[in-house]
């Protein structure tokens, strides 16, 4: 008998346990069936994420809030990009499916992060994607860029996250973004998984890449606002 087949020792922390419970409750069959009935898988998934994140963020530290806020800074334009591409209706075949499915996921991530951060959420910027939401090839390239930057950023931040519950949720988003990237690469005719290991991207690098991409019409706040306490008395 393998020692793997008889669980020994303790390998779960209370915080992770809570996160698991929270997340898994939203994925119970009853819950899924209810939400699927309302509006398809996309709606169910959105609900799942949105339900999972807010309670997590209540326990978040300032540091975690800043990390989630920059994740939101990346999710806003990603959601806007895929949504605009779907609305434009210029894409076809698997590429159109990517726009629809990934767009639904990114919108779910935005909603979840907004709810998690509440009043502390950064504001959405203004974006100009040019013809990247109409031209099939440009769309694919930009879509891949969005996904890889998210994968790299979350990966780079993961060891810096204070709360285990926030970490579990962040990684749940991280692997979905990696699935997206793989899918897009396959649609482009590239090897879906090009490396044995995925390197992280520092926040500085993510910021630089984001700015140089030229999608920003108006610069949003890139990091959580750090205001000095106001003297009101």
């Amino acid at each position, binding site marked *: 008998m393998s020692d793997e087949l008889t*669980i020994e020792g303790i390998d779960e922390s209370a915080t992770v346990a809570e996160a698991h419970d929270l997340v898994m409750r939203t994925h119970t069959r009853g819950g899924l069936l209810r939400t699927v009935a309302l509006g398809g898988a996309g709606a169910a998934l959105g609900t799942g994420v949105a339900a999972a994140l807010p309670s997590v963020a209540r326990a978040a530290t300032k540091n975690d809030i800043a990390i989630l806020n920059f994740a939101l800074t990346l999710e806003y334009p990603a959601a806007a990009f895929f949504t605009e591409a779907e609305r434009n209706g210029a894409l076809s075949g698997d590429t159109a499916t990517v726009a629809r499915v990934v767009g639904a996921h990114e919108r779910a991530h935005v909603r979840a992060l907004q709810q998690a951060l509440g009043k502390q959420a950064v504001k959405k910027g203004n974006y100009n994607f040019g013809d990247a939401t109409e031209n099939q090839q440009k769309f694919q390239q930009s879509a891949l860029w969005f996904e890889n930057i998210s994968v790299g950023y979350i990966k780079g931040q993961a060891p810096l996250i204070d709360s285990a519950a926030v970490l579990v949720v962040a990684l749940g988003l991280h692997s979905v973004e990696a699935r997206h990237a793989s899918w897009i690469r396959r649609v482009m005719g590239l090897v879906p998984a090009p490396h044995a290991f995925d390197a992280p991207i520092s926040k500085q690098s993510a910021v630089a890449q984001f700015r140089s991409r030229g999608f920003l019409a108006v610069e949003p706040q890139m990091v959580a606002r750090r205001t000095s306490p106001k003297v009101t008395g």
Partner: protein
Amino acid sequence: VSDSVTVEVVDADAALAEAQAVEASEPRQAFLRRAVIGGGAVVAGGILVGGLPRLTASAAPSAQQDVRILNFAALLEYLQAAFFTEAVAKGALSGETLHFAQVVGKHERAHVNLFEKTLGSKIRKKPTFDFADTTADPARFRSTAVLLEDLAVAAYDGQAALLTKPTLMVAAQIVSVESRHAAWARAMVGKEPAPRAYDPPATRAQVTAVVQRSGFVTSA
């Protein structure tokens, strides 16, 4: 091993007992087919979610815990590496399926190498495996690949928060590659590569139950 008995241990036993009961009444091929029909739902559907253990234990990350978790992950990496390597060696695959097996096999072997280097003498004994005809039949190979890759994603996501930060940094570089593999495998069998907006984690007990039910591990 531990100074406190946890609910999880009890529940893990229950999960394994349930797994054995099901296994006794269900041939392995039937389980694999059923598991595979769910695809990612192996994790989010009946098998894992249905048996979600109550988790109440507490264990702060430590070097010792890292070794236990990495050895658990090493079992999955050994399993995957052996599966893809055998599938390529058997010569029944062609086209994109063969390319997939070659590329993913190379990655999984690289992951095994990393674990062997990282754990050194503390690494578990390399298990032996019996993949039956899942490495000889292209359709069964593909659906088993979906199962193994989705399972690895959920396993890593479930253990990450229990690791020390330096080890987490390494694990995070692997989990997204497993996610890319999973999406690729799913696309090949006509399933949505990213079926959910959020990948739910699996506990060690849940992953172990699936590995046991697969019957792939014949010795530890």
